[in-house]
């Protein structure tokens, strides 16, 4: 017993050590990763965010330095608080508050005391900073907008949120990321890649040299500049024309699908979302739930396409051979669905396709639609063919342009009506409103512009896009460089385009003529309903105009959508004509018209439904 006692003890100790070590090193082991090792500090080197240029190389977005006053609470020495606060332009209470917050967050890690000083404040503060132990100024890079326009397209950047951090491990607290628009879509291109230095720390949090001799450190990769397809002058001009009006405008170069302008009204100066006032301004914009300035109407609004949709009906009917350009219908100042009469403003009489288009005759297209459906045995079959033709113009689904938001619009198919009315319990007369762009169809302004571009091209389009060049590389993304054909033969386009030309020359849009420019267009006056206290109320019609010019070699195709603008030619038409003139000629000859459009607002229309009083719609106020 006494001889083996010590040996037993030795073995027992060995065993208990090894089991404890297994527990520590095998079971509980949390191998230090560089990310959570307390002995390794990461220091980042942020590259400058890439600039954004317009299609002509004009600078749209650059960077400006901003200066954050940082504090490390542990290192703060007693100071003259009053003097310091005066320098920083904050109240002593605010100062104490922020300091306490910083201390709660961490006594030894830096926190932001005052964010984004102006250059002047910085200059004033810089030389006196040494006096204040524990405080220092950190330079950051903010966006500097060289245009007051395009806020909706360009988007903005802001600090990453907790949610972003969880989604993408690349980001660290306090970094900036693109929130909307181009800034979000091309975030990774624009931001580049931050460099990281790993620093070995000791337990007092002091640096004692690079980790692994700096072998794991990386250099920052600068952000790449991009050129987008917008035309700065056109965009700015369009936004000025939208003054006091709500709606969306999209202009596309038909030959490439490049978006020349993308305007939403009301809009805001992108500069509002930069700097110290950012969050205040953002709240103001975000909580304006009536005018919704942050809601990009050019890609999110989904009005009925109205009369411009008639051009597509003509094309589909020609393609299916149910009419020829010479087919006529009689208009009885309207047309009958069953024994209910629907109105028409064309003046009545015999209509050919040409006059049906330029006078925007409802009866003509209702008749065409009826013939289209009569060609097939069942409504279902006809519906499928019709839907296929409509969708081939990029309607009824997301277009696939390079912005992070969008809407699909709607081309109702048989599934839609089966769901609404019950399986097979609907016939073509239920859906005849679609033939004149009312009813269930809906399209965003960018879809309408794209549809117009497809007509301008006589049968094909390129997916609209904003990116033109990344760094020095022009884009070669097949999504944007491959032509998408519609289901209509090119030969059917000429008679329809002829009708659209007559719209401008002698039809519903003859008021907007530009000397020396040939335009093909189509007006739209879209009925517009809303609910006020649960009751369906009709409001003043939306004004719509699609056009391309010149007719033979189209350089611009656009869709203008003005909420409550009444007749298509009135607001939308005039604004479209000014934009076309601006883009094609570079200057405006019709100064009176320009002046009127810049000054006129529709605020009185927008206020009507909120006034709580009786109001009239579609008044002639011009």
């Amino acid at each position, binding site marked *: 017993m006494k001889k083996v006692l010590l040996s037993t003890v030795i073995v027992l100790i060995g065993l208990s*050590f090894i089991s404890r070590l297994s527990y520590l090193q095998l079971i509980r082991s949390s*191998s230090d990763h560089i990310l959570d090792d307390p002995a390794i500090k990461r220091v980042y080197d942020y590259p400058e965010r890439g600039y954004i240029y317009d299609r002509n190389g004009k600078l749209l977005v650059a960077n400006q330095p901003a200066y954050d006053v940082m504090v490390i609470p542990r290192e703060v020495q007693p100071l003259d608080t009053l003097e310091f606060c005066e320098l920083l332009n904050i109240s002593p209470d605010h100062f104490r508050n922020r300091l306490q917050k910083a201390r709660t967050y961490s006594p030894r890690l830096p926190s932001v005391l005052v964010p984004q000083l102006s250059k002047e404040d910085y200059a004033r503060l810089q030389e006196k900073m040494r006096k204040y132990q524990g405080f220092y100024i950190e330079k950051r890079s903010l966006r500097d907008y060289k245009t007051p326009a395009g806020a909706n397209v360009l988007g903005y950047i802001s600090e990453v949120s907790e949610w972003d951090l969880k989604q993408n491990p690349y980001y660290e607290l306090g970094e900036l990321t693109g929130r909307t628009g181009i800034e979000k879509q091309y975030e990774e291109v624009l931001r580049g890649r931050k460099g990281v230095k790993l620093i070995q720390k000791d337990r007092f949090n002091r640096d004692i040299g690079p980790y692994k001799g700096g072998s794991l450190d990386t250099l920052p990769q600068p952000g790449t500049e991009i050129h987008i397809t917008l035309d700065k002058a056109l965009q700015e001009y369009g936004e000025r024309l939208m003054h006091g009006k709500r709606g969306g405008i999209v202009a596309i170069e038909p030959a490439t699908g490049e978006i020349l302008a993308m305007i939403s009204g009301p809009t805001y100066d992108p500069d509002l979302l930069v700097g110290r006032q950012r969050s205040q301004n953002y709240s103001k914009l975000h909580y304006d739930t009536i005018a919704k300035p942050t809601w990009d109407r050019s890609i999110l609004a989904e009005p009925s396409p109205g009369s411009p949709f008639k051009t597509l009906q003509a094309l589909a009917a020609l393609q299916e051979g149910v009419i020829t350009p010479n087919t006529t219908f009689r208009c009885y100042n309207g047309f009958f669905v069953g024994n209910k009469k629907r109105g028409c403003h064309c003046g009545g009489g015999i209509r050919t396709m040409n006059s049906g288009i330029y006078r925007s005759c409802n009866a003509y297209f209702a008749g065409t639609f009826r013939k289209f459906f009569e060609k097939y045995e069942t409504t279902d079959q006809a519906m499928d063919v019709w839907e296929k033709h409509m969708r081939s113009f990029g309607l009824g689904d997301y277009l696939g342009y390079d912005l992070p938001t969008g809407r699909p619009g709607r081309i109702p198919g048989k599934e839609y009506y089966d769901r609404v009315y019950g399986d097979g319990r609907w016939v073509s007369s239920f859906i005849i409103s679609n033939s004149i762009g009312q009813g269930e169809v809906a399209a965003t302004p960018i879809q309408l512009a794209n549809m117009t571009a497809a007509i301008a091209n006589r049968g094909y389009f390129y997916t609209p896009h904003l990116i033109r060049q990344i760094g020095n590389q022009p884009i070669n993304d097949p999504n944007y460089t491959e032509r998408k054909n519609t289901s209509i033969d090119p030969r059917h386009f000429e008679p329809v385009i002829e009708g659209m030309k007559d719209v401008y020359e002698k039809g519903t849009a003859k008021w907007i003529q530009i000397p020396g420019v040939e335009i093909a267009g189509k007006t739209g006056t879209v009925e517009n309903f809303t609910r006020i206290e649960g009751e369906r109320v009709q409001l003043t019609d939306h004004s719509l105009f699609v056009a391309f010019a010149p007719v033979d070699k189209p350089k611009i195709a656009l869709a203008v959508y003005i909420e409550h603008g009444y007749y298509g030619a009135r607001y939308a038409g005039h604004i479209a004509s000014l934009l076309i003139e601006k883009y094609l000629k570079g200057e405006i000859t019709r100064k009176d018209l320009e002046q009127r459009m810049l000054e006129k607002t529709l605020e009185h229309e927008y206020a009507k439904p909120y006034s709580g009083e009786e109001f009239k719609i579609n008044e002639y106020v011009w």
Partner: protein
Amino acid sequence: MFGRGALRRLDWTSALLYLVLVTLGWISIYSSTFDPEAASLLDPGQRYGKQLIFILISLGMIVVIMALEANFYERFSSLFYVIGLGLLLGLFVFGKTIAGATSWYDLGFFNLQPSELAKTTTALALAKYLSDIQTDIRKLRHQAYAILIFLAPAILIIPQPDPGSALVFFALIFVLFREGLPLWYLALGLLAVTIFICTLIFGTVWIGIGMALVIGLIYMLKKQSYRIPLLPVLGLYAVTLVFSLSVNFVFDNVFEQRHRDRFSLWLRLEKDPEKLEEIRKTIGYNTYQSEKAIESGGLKGKGFLEGTRTKGDFVPEQDTDYIFTTIGEEWGFYGTTTVVLLFTLLLLRLVHLAERQKNPFSRMYGYGVISILLIHYFINIGMVIGLLPTIGIPLPFFSYGGSGLLGFTILLFIFLRLDANRLNEWG
């Protein structure tokens, strides 16, 4: 020459294990005090340089020890013991204070820590006394003398203050057990420790209830014919309760807060997460950091000189008492188990050597050596991996420190010298 024969008969297994441990120790010191700017391994301005010099001195010392005649150590053991005590006493007058403890003599080129040498001299003296033909370990008076031999240096060391080193001397009680001290002393001691710990964890009331249940169970299960006298059992029960109560009293009234904190840290008595966090930052900082560093090594470790926590000096005293964490972080589970196995092998080998001695003095000294090495190894690693409370004593052959290395070398090799001589003895 006698010495050459002694070297030939040296137990090379033990010597080799010693060399491996010292080498591993030096590598760990090198890693934990590594400074990329210092060039030379022998740079005396660096701790690893200094330690390397002491390793070389130790190797020289081994040659000297082996060269001397074996009975030299037995013959002069009493004198060595007296010199050892004298050196400890002299500290009260000439001692140099480092980090609050007056444990060193300043010899200019290095600081001598006499308590390290006293371990050897005490082991020799104890062996000498016990091997005396007139000593009878079964007699209470002789037991008391024997205990006094290692109690004396311990008492001199406590006020330095260096309670850790003082504790080491109590390990020599194993020598007495080997030589016939009744084992129920040990049983009693273990019982006392168990009650002490259980009182702190569960409280006196539960100990009372628990013991009553156990005794009741034994009475119910025993054979009818087998009779256990009731009175001594009740007496034991009463003594236990009184002891347990006195533990409470001592813990609350005699111990200082820092002692209480150490125990509550060791026994995980604190459950409140906020206070735990507080303990981690203060009294428990060392233990927390050393456990974390060892954990972070995982199975394979981070590699030589790659321990980030080691480099960052997150573990205090890492080149001395907490040297084992360097192994844990840089060499992982492979490294730590290797070290544990090496110590286990060396100690078992020494037990084997001790048992084969014909000369009782050699055997008893051998047991002294084993006891002292064992308690260092047990307390040091136990503390570093969080099994034992924080008691600051070095890990033999590993920890930085000249006196320590030299002391352990002398301690071990005197025994190996005695072992090499065993064939010449006819005990």
